[in-house]
């Protein structure tokens, strides 16, 4: 069966399609055919498909209105499989490919017979703005339920539920001049810049470059304009200094000439990228362009007129009619009525007439139109009805007539008797709005130009607009403007432009356009047929009138109240008309009302292109220690600490069952307390500090004293901000008189490094000191527990004698035959040695330890056990037990504060502020739950009187809490107001489930309070 017979609206010849290549596609489950070169929209029109969607709010049938990015109705869901689903594709921008499968975005059970239209009718003749909120308001708790069903009925597409088989790339590009848009102005600008030797990127969102030249009636050098475009594109393509990007939308202009270009590379070939030599090329690319200068040749969007039932399928933009006829060989109807305010739109009627179909009438709002095109139309015998407009379209699923009458646009009145013209298509044109979206992204306010009846872009330095984008709609002017603006941009770059010869354009006398936006009706707007302003969001002229009547005077408020310019449409067709209506109602001019601003993105961008390769395992870098492989092989569960993967615990298989976290941690804790354990502590931040003033510097950034720390000794230090609040802690070892090794918390490493540089570079540049991050260079292996000395002694040449190598000493020597620094510091309270070796020796040392450790039952432990052990000793973790509002004094660590140091170290002054001197500050204490089985919840709030009426005064919260296996009960660290003076008091922790836990305030050192075990 030949499908071509179905293409009832396809012309026998003409257009830029390839009739030899027939493509089959499916729309709403029905098969159709089109040709290579078609868009989905042109193919649907060729097949006489009138209804492509249901409207968002009223569920009215909708057809194709436009031929490009401004299409508000023809939003489709693409994809024959779940993984290939793409929502909200404009049929006018989707190239047809064989096998394309599309569904209407709206409409259930289908677009012909729609259930939601009942809601539209229930809402009465007029659903006011805010209808859903006003109608489904009470009870408030039900809104979530209502919303679910309303959204189901009204939603705009859906995202795929399966993994995207495609990949996406980011490319970073630089150029002298970025030209956005390859229409007449863009091409002449790009050619000027390219011939001048500048590096040029030219992008265009369409399948083919040429813009309006592709369907223009004009001749350039006595030949079809498209031929000139083809020649220029061919020349540009051959130049090394030019990058041509077709099918590429400049979707956002960001700061400092940073423009993102979304290039769709395979979407015209199939729903997923086709295999090429066994691999799938990236489906799309995001070019992140840093341009020297930017030239916007983005053209203009035609404005439809706002009249009654202007949404019935068969109402199109005049320019779109021309595009479908001339570019795709498709006439979207049989009998045309054109309603216009300007000469330019006459082309639609002339093209329609050329295609051999009937032009019923041209209805021109001007009293006496007299341009050359008007004369041409009259000469062809086309009826021109002056001083009039189409008041209302007739028909429901397709236009079947147009009511026409004389109007007084200024007085907003119908002045004559209406006449109904029989037709199936109404084309309208209310003028042309420059596409100012990208310029708006810069934050520059557009300005109204009365001559062109439109906003022209406001421009920041280095951004230029050319041609239609700044209101020069005449072809000859646009071509010349491209050269002018490119020359200006080149001048700013310090380059001189080489002149290019322009093609000859036949001069055409055009009459002036008149201002017409909202066509008056015999009935008041609220009572007449619906007159749509924003088709995608179902915003009517009446809605805007109501909004202004309800007191919304700012156009930004009108926008939000009515939803005008929302959605994927971003007000491309409707905004100016909406502003004009608001202005009329408010008795102001359009520039007085002003415009809303457009935000990125110009048209929707798929998330894949935004993410690029930064997804899944490449979303964020993962950092592994040198021992990672061992941990993996020994069944470690991992914890993310910043970007690091740290072993969390090492569950063992006991009686065929894998230990739980609690079981494993209890075992690991006891092993360290009673035998020996080993921890991979390589992730600790390490900063090598050198220079004659290194010691002085340490004294200024740490709260405690460093003047007398001798080589071979280690000291724990607290680091505050100048507000006196703790920011980080760690040990620093004196390696030599002018050489220190600082350790930081794992998460704080980069921040501390920048902090040291900040103070050195901005406050104390006179100090001679240098900082080098050595975190990754050294692996750190902590051997801790009563048996640690015996084990380490087996594999080191360092004298471990407790009198020779005391607590807080460090020694250099060999461990497992490799050079090592061994630090006798303890984060567990047990005898402990932290072994630092060059990272690539770490695995060897670790394995040697285990070879010798078997007889001591050497137990690897992870971060959870580390946390429990340090909490048993009351040792804090900066960032867990502190939160930027805790001073060293709040922690009870006055012993680490050098009150009498000569230099006013960072944080010192703040400790004498009235606020830091308060006695009721939250202070660190230990909490011992009365019930030994209870482990308090971290973050739980603490109250003094559990019977107090809600809200209870809260006096603190739990910062760390664990079960202590060695003590046999739960332990917690907490901050409590005035806690240091509340030892022995009972506090209460009411929980969400109604339970109230009781706990005693105790010292934060739960185990070995005298600290004897680490000194053995």
């Amino acid at each position: 069966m030949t499908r071509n017979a179905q293409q009832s609206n396809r012309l026998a010849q003409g257009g830029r399609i390839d009739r030899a290549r027939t493509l089959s596609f499916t729309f709403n489950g029905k098969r159709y055919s089109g040709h290579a070169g078609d868009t989905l929209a042109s193919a649907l029109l060729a097949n006489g498909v009138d209804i492509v969607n249901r409207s968002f709010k009223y569920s009215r049938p909708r057809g194709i209105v436009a031929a490009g990015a401004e299409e508000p109705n023809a939003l489709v869901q693409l994809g024959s499989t779940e993984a290939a689903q793409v929502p909200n594709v404009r049929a006018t921008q989707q190239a047809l490919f064989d096998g394309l499968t599309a569904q209407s975005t709206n409409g259930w059970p289908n677009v012909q017979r729609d259930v939601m239209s009942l809601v539209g009718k229930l809402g009465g003749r007029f659903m006011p703005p805010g209808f859903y909120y006003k109608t489904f308001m009470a009870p408030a708790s039900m809104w979530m339920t209502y919303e679910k069903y309303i959204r189901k009925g009204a939603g705009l597409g859906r995202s795929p539920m399966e993994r995207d088989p495609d990949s996406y790339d980011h490319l970073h590009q630089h150029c002298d001049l970025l030209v956005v848009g390859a229409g007449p102005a863009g091409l002449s600008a790009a050619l000027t810049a390219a011939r001048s030797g500048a590096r040029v990127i030219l992008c265009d969102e369409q399948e083919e470059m040429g813009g309006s030249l592709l369907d223009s009636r004009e001749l350039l050098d006595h030949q079809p304009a498209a031929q000139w475009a083809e020649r220029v594109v061919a020349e540009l393509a051959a130049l090394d200094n030019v990058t041509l990007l077709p099918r590429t939308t400049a979707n956002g202009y960001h700061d400092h000439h940073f423009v993102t270009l979304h290039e769709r590379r395979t979407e015209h070939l199939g729903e997923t990228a086709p295999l090429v030599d066994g691999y799938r090329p990236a489906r799309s690319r995001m070019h992140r362009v840093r341009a020297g200068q930017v030239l916007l040749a983005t053209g203009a969007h035609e404005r439809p007129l706002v009249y009654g039932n202007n949404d019935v399928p068969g109402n199109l933009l005049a320019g779109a009619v021309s595009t479908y006829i001339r570019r795709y060989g498709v006439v979207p109807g049989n009998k045309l009525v054109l309603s216009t305010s300007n000469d330019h739109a006459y082309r639609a009627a002339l093209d329609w007439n050329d295609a051999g179909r009937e032009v019923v009438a041209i209805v021109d709002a001007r009293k006496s139109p007299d341009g050359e095109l008007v004369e041409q139309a009259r000469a062809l015998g086309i009826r021109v009805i002056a001083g009039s407009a189409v008041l209302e379209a007739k028909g429901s699923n397709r236009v079947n007539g147009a009511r026409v009458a004389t109007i007084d646009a200024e007085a907003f009145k119908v002045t004559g008797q209406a006449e109904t013209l029989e037709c199936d298509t109404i084309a309208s044109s209310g003028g042309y709005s420059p596409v100012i979206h990208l310029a708006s992204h810069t934050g520059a306010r557009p300005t109204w130009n009365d001559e062109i009846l439109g906003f022209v872009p406001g421009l920041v330095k280095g951004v230029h607009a050319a041609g239609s984008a700044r209101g020069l709609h005449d072809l000859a002017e646009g071509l010349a403007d491209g050269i002018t603006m490119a020359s200006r941009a080149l001048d700013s770059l310090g380059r001189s432009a080489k002149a290019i010869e322009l093609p000859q354009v036949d001069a055409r006398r055009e009459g002036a356009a008149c201002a017409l936006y909202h066509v008056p009706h015999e009935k008041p707007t609220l009572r007449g047929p619906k007159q749509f302003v924003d088709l995608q969001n179902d915003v009517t002229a009446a809605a805007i009138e109501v909004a202004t009547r309800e007191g919304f005077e700012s156009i930004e408020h009108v926008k939000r109240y009515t939803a005008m310019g929302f959605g994927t449409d971003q007000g491309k067709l409707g905004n100016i008309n909406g502003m004009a209506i608001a202005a009329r109602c408010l008795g102001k001019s359009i520039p007085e009302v002003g415009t809303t601003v457009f935000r990125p993105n110009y048209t929707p961008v798929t998330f894949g292109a935004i993410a690029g390769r930064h997804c899944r395992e490449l979303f964020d870098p993962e950092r592994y220690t040198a021992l990672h492989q061992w941990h993996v092989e020994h069944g470690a569960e991992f914890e993310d600490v910043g970007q690091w993967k740290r072993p969390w615990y090492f569950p063992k298989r006991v009686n065929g069952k894998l230990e739980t976290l609690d079981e494993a941690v209890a075992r690991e804790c006891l092993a360290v307390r009673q035998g020996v354990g080993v921890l991979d502590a390589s992730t600790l931040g390490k900063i090598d500090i050198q220079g004659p003033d290194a010691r002085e510097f340490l004294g200024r950034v740490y709260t405690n004293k460093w003047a007398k720390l001798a080589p071979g000794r280690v000291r724990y230090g607290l680091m505050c901000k100048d507000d006196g609040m703790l920011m980080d802690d760690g040990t620093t070892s004196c390696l030599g008189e002018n050489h220190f090794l600082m350790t930081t918390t794992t998460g704080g490493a980069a921040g501390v490094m920048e902090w040291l540089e900040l103070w050195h570079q901005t406050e104390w540049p006179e100090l001679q000191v240098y900082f080098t991050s050595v975190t990754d260079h050294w692996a750190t292996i902590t051997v801790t527990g009563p048996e640690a000395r015996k084990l380490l002694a087996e594999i080191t040449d360092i004298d471990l004698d407790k009198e020779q190598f005391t607590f807080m000493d460090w020694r250099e020597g060999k461990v497992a035959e490799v050079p090592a620094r061994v630090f006798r510091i303890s984060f567990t309270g047990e005898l402990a040695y932290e072994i630092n070796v060059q990272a690539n020796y770490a695995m060897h040392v670790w394995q040697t330890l285990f070879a010798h450790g078997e007889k001591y039952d050497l137990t690897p432990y992870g971060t959870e056990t580390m946390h429990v052990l340090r909490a048993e000793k009351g040792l804090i973790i900066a960032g867990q037990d502190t939160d930027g509002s805790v001073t060293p004094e709040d922690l009870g660590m006055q012993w680490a504060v050098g009150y009498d140091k000569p230099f006013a170290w960072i944080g010192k002054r703040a400790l004498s502020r009235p606020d830091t001197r308060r006695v009721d500050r939250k202070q660190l204490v230990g909490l011992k739950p009365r019930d030994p089985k209870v482990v308090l919840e971290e973050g739980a709030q603490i109250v003094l009187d559990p019977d107090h009426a809600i809200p209870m005064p809260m006096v603190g919260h739990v910062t760390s809490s664990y079960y202590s296996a060695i003590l046999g009960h739960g332990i917690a660290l907490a901050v409590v107001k005035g806690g240091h003076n509340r030892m022995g008091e009972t506090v209460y922790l009411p929980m969400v489930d109604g339970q109230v836990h009781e706990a005693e305030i105790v010292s934060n050192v739960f185990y070995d309070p005298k600290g004897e075990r680490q000194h053995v």
Partner: protein
Amino acid sequence: MFHIHCPYCEELREEEEFHPKGQAHIARPADPEACSDEAWGDYLFFRDNPRGIHHELWVHAIGCRKFFNITRNTVTYEILETYKMGEQPAITAESLASTEKLAGVQVAGGGQQTVGASDSAVKDSRGAKV
């Protein structure tokens, strides 16, 4: 995304390489102990939030790790100059206002359209100061 000229690397680099560190030229009082609580509080907590010209401290964090200053228009986001630690800005709100006055250019309330106008004034003020 900003394009920032690092005065140490002497190159324009992407914003991703930099961290903003707040208002520039906040000197730590030489003798904090001699400061009143109020003066110390001002130093710690109070910062300007101007509409227009602002001097900011930035660091080339993923580059040379050097701190430097930026003179930036907080309305247009235009970066008017970058300069090293210890240097003073060539462009200030005052210098800009006076040169524009001299040049007969009206400075609107910080609007975008002043960017182009400021351009000549910026050049002038550079010439005048250097």
